[in-house]
């Protein structure tokens, strides 16, 4: 018997979109000189106009952050900073539905993900760092580590609110003030967060949000009034930022691209491994820097695992991101869809075999079906370049040593996964994988207490946990982290 699920859309009415949004500087919304539109990638509907911050706006924002740093925030005892962070965390929880709907509208990700992952994790990051604010002397960086000053933070479009939380929560807990630039295609939850800062009574200037495109980000990271730059995004832009910061003495952390190997051994718990593969690459449409985009499966079970994977992929529900039963949402932008399409074509051209889940794509908006390439070799572009979309490349290996060799054979090193029932093999592999995070019998699990960050071209510095605090503290160049 066929059992179809009727549409179950989350209501949009919880969100009141304004026609246009200004910049959030010194605790209030101010107009910019020009504006750009932000759309829903699922429908291409214009959601709002957002101010574009030029160099003079960035200047004002940095000046506000500097004033707030010197006059208020750096002098505030840790326990008082913690109170603000706790308050922000609670308001995020209280306004969770509103934030989730807005995130889904602006980003295209399924409401199930924004509701169950992005927003709860964002609140968790504020709760976690609120707890650190008055305990920094016990974090292993000396008895009274100092903040750095004003942080310029540039974040990507894949987890707009969550990346904001990863950046702002530790910065504020450590006594810094911030100027944050959200991604051009997903500015709306950051602007709602600005309202939350007002609601929490955060002193003006502690958090400033400047919206715009790459030029705004450039103006921010190059600004002489910035002490610390934190960037999450593409490796290409990360390298450019590193060049700018290298000559300025700014502290820098970069969280960049990835091409993670998800290694499945022949004794893996197959059903859960298949879930892990699906979650690894199709979670958030594959717009995840730590996505498990390379499946390395032991040759002896490759056929069995692939059959199970395709059967599972056929049940993925692609469509309206606001529908509570949607598993795979929209690609975030036309540009990203073009990039995914081009890289997937290179897979065809280079001789890999493409299989896509048989799901119809909506007529409007940006969509790409969950896709798997088999017969992929290390030399193929789809095995080496970050696709940042719902495209999985499948490679095989014969021995654990070959698995390590192939997993590490990439310029990236952000994450990896290992699936086996054999504990000693997990430990053996984890100690040899050059990746910042190694997940064992799970994938894409995040927790504010767990440091996250990369090796090699995936960047440097850690976010989250005790280690993540170091990026926002003056540890005298010799912290014991």
């Amino acid at each position: 018997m066929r059992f179809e699920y009727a549409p179950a859309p989350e209501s949009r009415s919880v969100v009141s979109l304004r026609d246009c949004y200004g910049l959030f500087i010194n605790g209030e919304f101010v107009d910019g000189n020009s504006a750009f539109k932000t759309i829903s990638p699922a429908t291409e509907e214009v959601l709002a106009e957002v101010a574009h911050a030029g160099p003079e706006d960035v200047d004002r924002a940095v000046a506000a952050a500097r004033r707030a740093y010197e006059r208020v925030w750096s002098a505030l005892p840790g326990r008082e900073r913690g109170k603000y962070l706790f308050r922000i965390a609670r308001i995020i929880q209280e306004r969770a539905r509103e934030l989730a709907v807005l995130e889904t509208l602006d980003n295209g990700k399924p409401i199930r993900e924004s509701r169950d992952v992005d927003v709860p994790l964002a609140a968790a990051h504020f709760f976690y760092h609120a707890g650190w604010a008055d305990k920094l002397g016990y974090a292993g960086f000396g008895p009274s580590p100092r903040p750095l000053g004003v942080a310029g933070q540039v974040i990507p479009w894949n987890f707009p609110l969550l990346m904001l939380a990863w950046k702002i929560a530790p910065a504020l807990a450590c006594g810094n003030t911030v100027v944050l630039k959200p991604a051009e295609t997903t500015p709306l939850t950051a602007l709602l967060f600005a309202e939350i800062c007002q609601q929490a009574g955060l002193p003006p200037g502690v958090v400033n949000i400047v919206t715009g495109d790459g030029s705004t980000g450039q103006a921010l990271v190059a600004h002489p009034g910035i002490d610390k730059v934190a960037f999450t995004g593409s490796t290409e832009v990360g390298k450019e930022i590193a060049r700018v910061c290298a000559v300025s003495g700014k502290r820098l952390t970069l969280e960049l691209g990835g091409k993670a190997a998800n290694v499945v051994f022949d004794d893996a718990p197959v059903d859960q491994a298949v879930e892990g593969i699906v979650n690894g690459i199709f979670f958030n449409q594959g717009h995840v820097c730590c996505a498990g985009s390379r499946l390395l499966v032991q040759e002896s079970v490759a056929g069995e695992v692939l059959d199970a994977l395709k059967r599972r992929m056929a049940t993925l529900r692609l469509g309206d991101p606001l529908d509570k039963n949607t598993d795979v949402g929209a690609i975030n932008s036309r540009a990203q869809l073009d990039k995914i399409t081009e890289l997937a074509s290179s897979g065809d051209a280079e001789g890999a075999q493409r299989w896509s889940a048989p799901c119809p794509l909506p007529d409007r908006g940006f969509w790409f079906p969950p896709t798997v390439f088999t017969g992929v070799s290390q030399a193929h572009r789809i095995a080496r370049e970050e696709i940042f979309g719902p495209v999985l490349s499948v490679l095989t290996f014969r021995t654990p040593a070959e698995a390590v060799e192939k997993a590490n054979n990439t310029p990236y090193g952000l994450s990896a996964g290992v699936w086996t029932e054999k504990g000693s093999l997990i430990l053996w592999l984890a100690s040899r994988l050059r990746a910042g995070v190694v997940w064992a019998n799970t994938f894409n699990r995040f927790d504010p207490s767990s440091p996250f960050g990369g090796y090699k071209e995936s960047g440097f510095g850690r976010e989250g946990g005790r280690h993540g605090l170091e990026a926002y503290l003056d540890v005298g160049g010799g912290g014991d982290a």
Partner: protein
Amino acid sequence: MSHNGPMDGITALAGLAASDASLRRFLHGLPGVDEVGARARADVLASRSIKTDSKRQAIDLAISMIDLTTLEGQDTPGKVRALCAKASRPGFGAPPVAAVCVYPDLVPAAVAGVAGTGIKVASVATAFPSGRAALDVKLADVKSAVAAGADEVDMVIDRGAFLSGRYLTVFEEIVAVRASCGDAHLKVILETGELGTLDSVRRASWLAMLAGADFIKTSTGKVAPAATLPVTLVMLEAVRDFAAAGGRRIGVKPAGGIRTAKDAIRYLVLVNETAGEPWLDPAFFRIGASSLLNDLLMQRARMETGRYAGPDYMTVD
């Protein structure tokens, strides 16, 4: 009932029924179950939102899959007659349930109660619920139920033997019960609440399927926890994999603790997205329950009228 060709093929391939050791090699060679992952998957499926038409469809499907059950020491022919009346005409225009499930001595009452309705009579047997009796006693129990007209027999496995690794004992007992069932369908109760791990659930599922079960069933309802979503997920994976390997299509029956329409719909979602459409059929999926029917009826009435009817409008049995 005899095994068909592919099924014999599987049995032969594994060289299975030779000894405890050969069965252990096979059962322990099945892919493991990661408990955290299985629970996470069950949680995601439990968050599906089933509304309007699909909810209406699911409610009627769930009603048609119920094994309406009474398994109490105080059961009487009168109580069973009432149960049968409710089973065949639940009210509110709802379809009849799949079966009534009673103790063996009440099978005659149940047979009389459902005569002419198409509703099956299921009987628990084999020293239900503990299964702690000699094999010939268990088989006599089965035969008496079948002789009295039971269409389906719900047996319990010997959990003590299973947990101590005497897989051949469990296997041979199921084979013997199967033989005593004649044409009656055999549901094998794993009593997953006593098995401890999802790995054991998977192994017990395969053991029962290989020994000739028509259905694998979670629980007696007398042990907590009874049916859970993760356990049912693993059992659905087992029947799916068994069929894919060339075996017969085996049914699954969660029983115990499923009391609300919301619960029942979650199980249907689990079936839909794990084993798939072929199992969305009372021939291959049943829900063992008693109070569930009234909640489904209440939801059904609410969808028809837009209002909740109070419990006084639902018949007690």
